């Protein structure tokens, strides 16, 4: 870990690996970023520390280990801007609060527009961001060339006509985020139960009173699901039908290169997003594989398409060697917005449906989900995100600002 001289050496042990107790006030399913942040804010904001976070694999080894680390809050709609910008404000103070350096770097994000319609949509979004107090500006191709000199704006099948630019956006080192949260939670008494899969629930009528695992039951006052792509496998056991489809989402990284890429660049139209990690890898991603799947493996043609787009936008990438590709399983909703709130079962709450964009929301999602678990009621920020919106029709349609084909 110290090889690059940039990353701190982790202490020998950041959290205990205790045997689970019979009962907890709160059991959180999934020790990914959202599960960890939820446990953290339950303890910090609500004084609830009798918490178990149960994880089928290893801590932060699911989608948290597989994302492209981009953080931004330039969403169009009021409900989204409020939630994601709350998360971004928390990111801005989190590393000091955790006393753990995770390389949060506000290097800015460019969201490119390649067509006249995209220009109109992007400018509308920038204006909406300004009205919502989210920093955003419209930049011209010349200004883009100053912000990101390696970006090819003109000699393209789809020339870059401009971009929205959010300066506060950036990246963070995802593993370190998880470890910092886990260490602090552990200090506050949270138990992490790894290598134990939650397979269902213990119920009493229409109340959930615990979780079933592959190694015995664990009682719970309240249960919070933060299981990402595997959420419906759990809710199916109770007959709760959620509007989620699980898809592979691929990402990839090149060999380590000198610093060449100063910001984050995203393109909806040619469909790729890139940044350069602190260590030097170019990190690239795009949309989901269209088919449903739990294989954590996507198809090669998806990678081909996004690499073609990346090389056209960044001719200097052409000589980079792709070091590895991987996929996570993401749970996608019909309106590209998450579901955070109660379920038809008392004491069971879900935080799911983040699709391709959960990492940026990590502290914000933890904050509102902790509030929901502690009080039984949604926080004002997640009130619009209940599953009832798929009955009422009050959808939060963020396909444009989600920036990724869902």
């Amino acid at each position, binding site marked *: 870990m110290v090889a690059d001289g940039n990353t701190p050496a982790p202490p020998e042990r950041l959290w205990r690996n205790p045997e689970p107790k019979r009962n907890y006030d709160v059991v959180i399913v999934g020790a990914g970023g959202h599960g960890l942040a939820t446990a953290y804010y339950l303890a910090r904001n609500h004084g609830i520390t009798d918490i178990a976070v149960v994880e089928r694999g290893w801590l932060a080894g699911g989608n948290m280990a597989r994302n492209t680390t981009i953080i931004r809050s330039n969403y169009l709609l009021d409900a989204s801007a409020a939630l994601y910008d709350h998360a971004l404000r928390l990111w801005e103070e989190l590393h000091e609060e955790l006393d753990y350096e995770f390389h949060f770097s506000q290097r800015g994000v460019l969201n490119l527009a390649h067509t006249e319609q995209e220009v109109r949509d992007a400018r509308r979004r920038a204006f909406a961001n300004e009205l919502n107090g989210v920093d955003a500006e419209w930049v011209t191709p010349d200004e883009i060339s100053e912000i990101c000199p390696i970006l090819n704006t003109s000699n393209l099948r789809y020339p870059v006509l401009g971009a929205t630019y959010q300066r506060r956006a950036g990246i963070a080192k995802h593993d370190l985020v998880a470890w910092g949260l886990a260490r602090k939670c552990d200090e506050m008494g949270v138990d992490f139960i790894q290598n134990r899969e939650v397979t269902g629930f213990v119920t009493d009528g229409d109340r959930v009173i615990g979780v079933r695992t592959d190694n015995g039951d664990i009682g719970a006052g309240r249960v919070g699901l933060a299981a990402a792509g595997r959420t419906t496998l759990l809710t199916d056991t109770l007959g709760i039908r959620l*509007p989620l*489809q699980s898809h592979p989402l691929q990402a990839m990284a090149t060999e380590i290169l000198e610093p060449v890429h100063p910001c984050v660049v995203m393109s909806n139209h040619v469909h790729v997003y890139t940044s350069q990690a602190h260590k030097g890898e170019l990190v690239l991603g795009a949309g989901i594989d269209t*088919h449903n799947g*739990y*294989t954590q*493996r996507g198809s090669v043609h998806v990678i081909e398409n996004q690499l073609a787009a990346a090389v056209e936008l960044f001719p200097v990438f052409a000589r980079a060697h792709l070091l590895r590709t991987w996929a996570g399983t993401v749970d996608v909703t019909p309106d590209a917005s998450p579901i955070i709130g109660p379920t038809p079962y008392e004491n069971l709450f879900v935080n799911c449906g983040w699709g391709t964009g959960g990492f940026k929301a990590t502290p914000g999602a933890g904050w509102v989900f902790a509030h929901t678990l502690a009080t039984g009621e949604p926080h004002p920020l997640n009130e619009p995100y209940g599953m009832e919106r798929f*009955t009422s*029709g009050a959808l939060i349609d963020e396909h444009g600002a989600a920036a990724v084909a869902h």
Partner: protein
Amino acid sequence: MLLVRCPWCGDRDEAEFRYGGQADVDYPADPHQLDDATWGEYLFVRANPSGSFDERWVHTAGCRRWFSVVRDTATNEMRPDIPRRRESR
């Protein structure tokens, strides 16, 4: 890349197809009789199993016909038999 068996064209690369999601989701016989919850469920909720899944594909770059297959979403194994009806649509 998946190898998808089109019933008319045979085994072809996934890139020739578009995905259509869960098979056999019928339009409600009388939508006006549905309450909001049932209509919302028809619009938005689909099965999402880890395992055997009946699903639709359309051979966009080939014969452009729709068909159903059974695929295991945990292994991507696709069964060549075409389930139930709709083969001719």
